[in-house]
């Protein structure tokens, strides 16, 4: 579904300056449809850049990225993004936030309302349709953020540490909600995380990112049956294995980019 073909990305103020160190370098990657891919790795090695490229927020310096065989030219409702902080519009209530995208994609008023209510129901927020984002907890806000892209029936979900700011309990609930939705709707998921446990629990495939020029440090397929148990031996073994891979990388890197986030 996603296809990265020899993609490089470097941030610099002047586009013609080419000696700024690249954050992604010569990355080739294929993500098939319906796969749940988690990306792990130290800060500053291009995970968020990968997601921003896939979302179309930024363009690669070199190489080509396609989605469903079409080149990515910009953001699109086919590739729904969930940000680390729920970026709900504070001047709209919960229902208004979900309706926002629908109304901008040509749904009629009634149809949009029906879709929005269904999406809120899918994430368990139908009771809070009239609430304002400021009144909600972080977990509830992320549920609404998921609902507003679900309503648009995206083919891919791009998630940038979506649950990392939540307490452990909400995080696990939201992970389960996400897995349920994914199993029902069969999205392609690109999920950035810092948590090894989260990756082991969620992913079909884990990518461990390291610093350029060899960004793709590890590409591991996880064919563990679902539903998985967080406390199972298999998960713990996998966690240990992933952690060993991560430990081979430096713990954090100097940011070499501007203009991101």
């Amino acid at each position, binding site marked *: 579904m996603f296809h990265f073909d020899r993609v490089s990305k470097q941030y610099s103020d002047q586009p013609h300056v080419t000696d700024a160190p690249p954050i992604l370098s010569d990355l080739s990657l294929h993500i098939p449809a319906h796969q749940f891919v988690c990306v792990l790795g130290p800060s500053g090695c291009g995970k968020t850049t990968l997601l921003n490229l896939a979302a179309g927020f930024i363009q690669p310096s070199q190489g080509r990225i396609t989605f469903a065989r079409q080149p990515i030219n910009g953001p699109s409702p086919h590739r729904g993004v969930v940000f680390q902080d729920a970026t709900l519009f504070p001047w709209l209530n919960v229902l208004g936030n979900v309706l*926002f995208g629908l109304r901008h994609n040509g749904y009629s008023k009634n149809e949009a309302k029906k879709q929005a209510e269904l999406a809120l129901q899918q994430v368990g927020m139908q009771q809070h349709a009239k609430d304002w984002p400021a009144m909600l907890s972080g977990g509830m806000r992320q549920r609404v953020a998921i609902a507003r892209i679900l309503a648009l029936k995206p083919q891919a979900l791009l998630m940038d540490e979506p649950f990392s700011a939540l307490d452990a309990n909400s995080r696990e609930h939201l992970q389960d909600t996400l897995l349920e939705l994914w199993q029902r709707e069969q999205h392609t998921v690109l999920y950035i995380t810092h948590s090894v446990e989260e990756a082991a629990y969620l992913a079909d495939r884990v990518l461990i990112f390291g610093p350029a020029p060899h960004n793709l440090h590890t590409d591991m397929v996880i064919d563990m049956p679902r539903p998985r148990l967080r406390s199972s031996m298999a998960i713990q073994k996998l966690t240990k294995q992933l952690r060993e891979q991560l430990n081979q990388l430096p713990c954090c890197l100097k940011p070499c980019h501007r203009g991101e986030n």
Partner: protein
Amino acid sequence: MIRRFQHPVAQRLISLLLPCLVIVLGWQLVAELVSHWRGVPFPTPWTTLCRLGELLSGRPLTGHSLYLHTLTSLVRWFNAFTLAAACGLLFGVGCARWWWLERMLAPIPLLLLLIPGLAWIPVAILIFGIGEGATRFMIAVTAFAPIAQATLHGIKRVDIALIRAAQMLGTRERALFFQVLLPAALPALLSGLRIGLGNSWRVLVAAEMVVGTGSGLGFSIIEARWSLDYPSALACILMICLIGLLFEQGLFRTLERRTLERWTLTGRRS
């Protein structure tokens, strides 16, 4: 001591009355001291209040009632402020929308902010002559800068994540501007309007004093001074204060409370 009054109305009342008490006491003290040391009668809060009462019940001041003076000032201010607000908003929105406009015009409000309101008097008189036009010009020019500046910066500082979220949801450029950037900049916009309002109200009074037009609160203050009617002058100052407070607290605070605090962009977190 204040903590003990938990009832919100009681708390509000206290937080309103306490500063008033301090002001009245300070005023009284100054009046006593000035009367004692300089031997001139300085109007006490009580004399001023009595005079304000008389003026409000119809005693004429420099040929007109206090109501007419107030109304003249308000109409004058309203006309000029509306014009300035419209221009300021258009300026800010335009500069935020088109980069070349920003390149060309962005320093203008910055420069205007540096010029004190009263410095416009010669310019105003040169352009409009003595009278209504000059006063309005001064009001408009002082209100314009903070509004334009706040609008431009408010829009430019909208969180990029909010913009990306809207783009990802399929918002096109035009809708993005009107349905995301403008509402997200609303807090900055409101604060610009509030500052513009305060500035222009202040300069209105000063402008009336200098480019006198025969009526208005500022004109009355200066006239009362010439006729040594100091209690009336202070009564007018009190009136100016009250009206300013009414606009600032009554109008803009309410607007802020109803919109911003509901979506907690500016924090009332208690």
